[in-house]
């Protein structure tokens, strides 16, 4: 059993591709600390990424790892989980990867309530491809493909996944890595589809064009805007505009999990045929 998170890392592949000040490493660290607390086994833990800076995390992790194709990590993960329900399956995805090109797979994975933990690194921009807009950017955001300001609103991904059927939904920020670690740990131990939105900073591509600029200012901003779900519940909606509501936002234990349901169906069918 690993004693430190270094043992879950392919440090021989460092230096990593992430820019100075990037929050993706912080979020990955929270995931690894949660994994360490849970003692996840390298063979039986399959971590699947899509394509993007965030998905590149899988290339540094010493689990069974799959760097799949853009947007499809959850579809790969569904095949893996259904073939081997005993595996712990974790998906690392970005806001473009998970909410744009992969949005359909996201809602269907929620609907199935398949026992996969999906951590979506939300930096509100396409980092890997050089600063194009993301569906999570929101109105007024500037990007190479929104040079006059973006006109579209963003999803509230936590409400979206809850409505689609996810049975564990949480949000944390790169400013609060310990809270994030706790939320991710909760997601991995939850049996059913767990969605964790990790709000993180991209000083290079987002910060270049949008305020606040620079990693520290972005983290300070996250700190100022974050509010725990319990506290938020006591506030009127107008005071929650632009706030980042964190914590476990939804948890449900009664709903059947898909892989288990399928296995039960197999037993039923084979007994009656």
């Amino acid at each position, binding site marked *: 059993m690993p004693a430190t998170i270094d043992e879950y890392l392919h440090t021989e592949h460092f230096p990593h591709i992430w820019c100075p000040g990037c929050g993706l490493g912080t979020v990955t660290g929270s995931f690894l600390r949660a994994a360490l607390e849970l003692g996840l086994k390298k063979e039986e833990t399959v971590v699947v990424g899509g394509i993007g800076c965030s998905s590149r995390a899988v290339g540094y992790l010493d689990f069974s790892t799959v760097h*799949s194709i853009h947007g499809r990590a959850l579809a790969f993960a569904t*095949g893996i989980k259904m*073939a081997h329900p005993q595996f712990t399956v974790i998906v690392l995805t970005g806001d473009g990867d998970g909410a744009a090109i992969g949005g359909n797979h996201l809602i269907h994975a929620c609907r199935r309530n398949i026992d996969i933990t999906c951590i979506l690194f939300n930096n509100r921009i396409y980092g890997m491809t050089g600063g194009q807009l993301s569906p999570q950017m929101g109105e007024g955001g500037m990007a190479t493909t929104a040079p006059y300001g973006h006109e579209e609103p963003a999803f509230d991904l936590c409400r979206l996944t809850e409505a689609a059927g996810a049975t564990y939904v949480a949000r944390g920020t790169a400013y609060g890595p310990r809270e994030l670690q706790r939320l991710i740990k909760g997601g991995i131990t939850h049996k059913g589809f767990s969605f964790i939105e990790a709000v993180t900073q991209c000083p290079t591509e987002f910060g270049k064009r949008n305020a606040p600029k620079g990693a520290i200012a972005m983290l300070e901003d996250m700190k100022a805007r974050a509010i725990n779900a319990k506290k938020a519940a006591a506030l009127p909606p107008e005071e929650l505009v632009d706030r980042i509501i964190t914590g476990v936002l939804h948890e449900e234990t009664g709903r059947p999990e898909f892989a288990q349901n399928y296995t039960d169906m197999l037993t039923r069918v084979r007994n009656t045929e």
Partner: protein
Amino acid sequence: MELWHSHILRETIDQDSLLVQGNRACALGALDSGVRFFAGYPITPSSEIMETMARELPLVGGVFLQMEDEIASICACIGASLTGEVAMTATSGPGFSLMQEAIGYAAVAEAPLVVVDVMRMGPSTGRPTTPSQGDVMQARWGTHGDHPAIVLAASNVADMYRLTMAAVRFAQRFRTPVTLLADEVVGHMRESFAPELVGRYRLTSGDFDFTEGYLRPDMVREVHPPHTLGRKGHPHVTGLIHDDTGFPTNDPKKSEQFLLQLHDKVVHHRDELCLYDVKNEGKGRVCIVAYGSCARSARAALKLAKEEGLPVEVLHLYTLFPLPVEIIQAVARRCEFILIPELNLGQYAREVRKMAENWTTVISMGKIDGTLITPREILDRLEELIGKYESI
């Protein structure tokens, strides 16, 4: 493994009828060759394959999933394949188009996978219930980049069974996606189909004994070390160009070596992969080269031609890619004409022409009105050609 233990087949035999539909035979071949994971999305004219898998797979403890689209379907299959499951999906043109990116991933990640494309008339929605062979070049080059491709073509119900088995075997042995092409007529036709008879079928220079069922064959030597998820060594799998450790590389030499190895592992084994059948071998001045439903018409045309005393032979191809270069060249050396009837505007004829034009004249007989090419149409063309030849 016990063959023919499928429910549907047992029912059919119980009812004293051995009429089996092509798409069902494909599913049965998949089950008998060890496919235990199927994910798909309904589309005419392929849906009966998934419907059969939906019914049969749970009975043998396998996984069947109807996914949200074809991209999800093929990606779920690749995920399962990476854990060591034998996986297959089936679709038709529009769905096959959606799958292309993932087919390239399976090629680069060396994930064994069978994709069945029951072709309908295209492009776009086309004519869904109409046969076509319009996806031949897509099956070869549909995904981007230089990649290997193994493409088989079924011409009847028995083919749907045994070529599915061959596809599974090739996919495992070469660790690459294998495409099985059928067309609407082959998928939907019902033929009498006796399991014992399909058992031994001479398809190639080597004998395939399908009664042995599915054996996990040894991998060819050119395959990179396989990375099975959930096993010792907790591997990394990626669609990036990578070296033998499985991790990405930008090294020009290693990149070239990686891609050449993918290519070589298929091309170096053409002898094993190229399944074909020659009728009236060495007796023709014209050779009809055909595959899929057109091969049936070609065989029937051969009978008529024999009655009329026309010197004709038929080369029936079951493997379209890798290109059967030596086989085509042998025919090209001995025949004055090669005639290629196909339900497209000469997609495969262009390939044959490249291989054969030094020795012979290649004539494309393409048809795209959605009807089959009849034996009579082929015969007319043969008479015309041989007449031309006589008068020279």
